[in-house]
């Protein structure tokens, strides 16, 4: 069955793809889609804490800025953080995992123990520590996220590399005289790529959640950046009267994280067609 047909049949994958596609669209077209694009920085205290209505579709925040418009621009920030932090984590974690899994000697063991140390500390706590030390700024958030997230990829790639290392095609390539670098990058890596893609997709959801948490704790971008986590933090003192203030960014975060998770799960089913599905073979 072709990939596209499978895509359409898998509801979860479809929903996930749609959500992420919407996120990207919203981020790209935030300016034309928003009603008050200037409210990213400007504010209007006379309109503060208005409930959702005809003018302000999702209500206003404590500075009188339109929550809907700020939400849309926040999407840009969300994508930026997710993509950059995850990419950096992947670029660190994958090579480490490859080398450690390929050589299986003391060096690899040491690398894995280092990653174990990182994994032992709760990611949020570590991210808080780093962000706190470096100060509130978007690039520090990204740094904190990458630094705490790379071990997940290192572990995954380590395990997959070790298992591929025993496959005959790898042994044959080595026997033929291919250098270790060639084997790792040209042979093993493409064969484990689907696992990496799936983990990366799900990882983006996790990254967004941690970024939002950091923003909530005040460690993210300084105001008035329309970061979703920060918006929820700001809403605390006005709950439960201004219920819309937290609801909008909260649902946005929920949807986006769920979207990435669904996409990742669905991709896993699509990219790793278990060839040995027993119902599919006649013995």
């Amino acid at each position, binding site marked *: 069955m072709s990939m596209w047909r499978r895509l359409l049949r898998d509801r979860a994958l479809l929903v996930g793809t749609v959500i992420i596609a919407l996120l990207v669209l919203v981020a790209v077209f935030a300016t034309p889609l928003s009603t008050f694009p200037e409210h990213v920085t400007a504010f209007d205290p006379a309109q503060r804490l208005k409930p959702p209505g005809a003018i302000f579709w999702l209500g206003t925040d404590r500075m009188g800025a339109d929550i809907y418009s700020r939400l849309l621009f926040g999407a840009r920030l969300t994508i930026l953080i997710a993509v950059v932090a995850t990419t950096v984590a992947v670029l660190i974690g994958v090579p480490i995992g490859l080398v450690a899994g390929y050589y299986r000697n003391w060096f690899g063991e040491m690398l894995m123990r280092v990653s174990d140390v990182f994994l032992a500390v709760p990611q949020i706590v570590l991210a808080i520590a780093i962000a706190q030390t470096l100060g509130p700024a978007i690039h520090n958030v990204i740094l904190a996220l990458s630094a705490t997230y790379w071990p997940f990829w290192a572990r995954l790639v380590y395990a997959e590399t070790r298992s591929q290392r025993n496959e005959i*095609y790898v*042994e*044959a390539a*080595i*026997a*033929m*005289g291919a250098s270790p670098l060639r084997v790792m990058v040209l*042979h093993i890596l*493409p*064969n484990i790529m689907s696992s990496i893609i799936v983990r990366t997709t799900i990882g983006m959801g996790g990254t967004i959640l941690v970024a939002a948490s950091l923003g909530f704790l005040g460690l993210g971008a300084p105001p008035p950046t329309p970061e979703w986590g920060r918006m929820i933090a700001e809403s605390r003192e006005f709950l439960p009267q201004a219920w819309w203030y937290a609801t909008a960014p909260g649902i946005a975060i929920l949807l986006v994280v769920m979207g990435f998770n669904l996409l990742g799960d669905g991709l896993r089913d699509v990219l790793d067609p278990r060839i040995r599905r027993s119902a599919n073979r006649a013995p």
Partner: protein
Amino acid sequence: MSGAPLLELIGLAHAFPIRNAFGVRTGWHKALDGVSLHVGEGEILGVVGESGCGKSTLGKIIAGILPPSAGSVRFEGNEIADLPPRAGAALRSRLQYCYQDPGASLDPRWKIGRALEEPLVVHTKLSRAERRRRVDAALEAVGLPQAHLDLYPHEISGGQQRRVGLARVLMLRPSLIILDEPTSGLDVSVQATVLNLFATLSKAHTLAYMFISHDLSVVRLFSHRIAVMYLGRVAEIGDTTQIFADPKHPYTQSLLAAVPQIGGPRVTDHFKLEGEPPHPDALPPGCRFAPRCPRADARCRSEDPQGRTLADGREVACHHV
């Protein structure tokens, strides 16, 4: 077949450490324990034996996949045992190893054309055009169409994958190919096709083979000479016709007696060999076949026989020959 042998093994040994539950080494599993033999140009040497005899380990050591614990391997006059991978690969380019399922040696994510070019990319500095020419020639030699170059391994049948794997082995124009159980698991009708292909290639390119197999009838038909292995040693080695007509080593005799002969008397009517080979970590002193040998005596149980050359040119490792 003149001059120095193409491949020469002297006293080759390989031992795997046996570790207990704590990872402490408690002993050695001697997969190979002093194997010496040679293969001439264009010659086909069959290596037979049952499980645990070490024939697979032998093939892998010669191909450089496993390192030897002791002994020497000389190929085309050069010592190739125990070299660092890069140097070894250069000297070994004309010595290729063909897996039991050559199709499995193909990377599932690589197109066949690219997989076939890889040996040339790694070992030679040929231009793209020249590489392409060689790939086309190799495909033709194994009887596959050019269209296969753009396909992935899972898009062709198992038999065709096998041929592609074989074509890949031929890319570097080897002078010796180690065939590790090439017909195991194959249906008899397919086996004939595969063996005929090997034979054709051997004649066309003056290829020598080390034909490792547990299937005696196939080895008999195909090999010029044959080496019978038992528990890491060569029990007997010589001309195929000689050995099949008149086996001298008691193990060889039992082995040949066990093979069913269709149309002839049933071997199970008279088969006599009892027991099973001892565990390789607990080899008995003296001759390793002594516990099961009908002719074993005190000398056999205490003194390990070395290979001796007999008048008719074959070598046997037995006190009673």
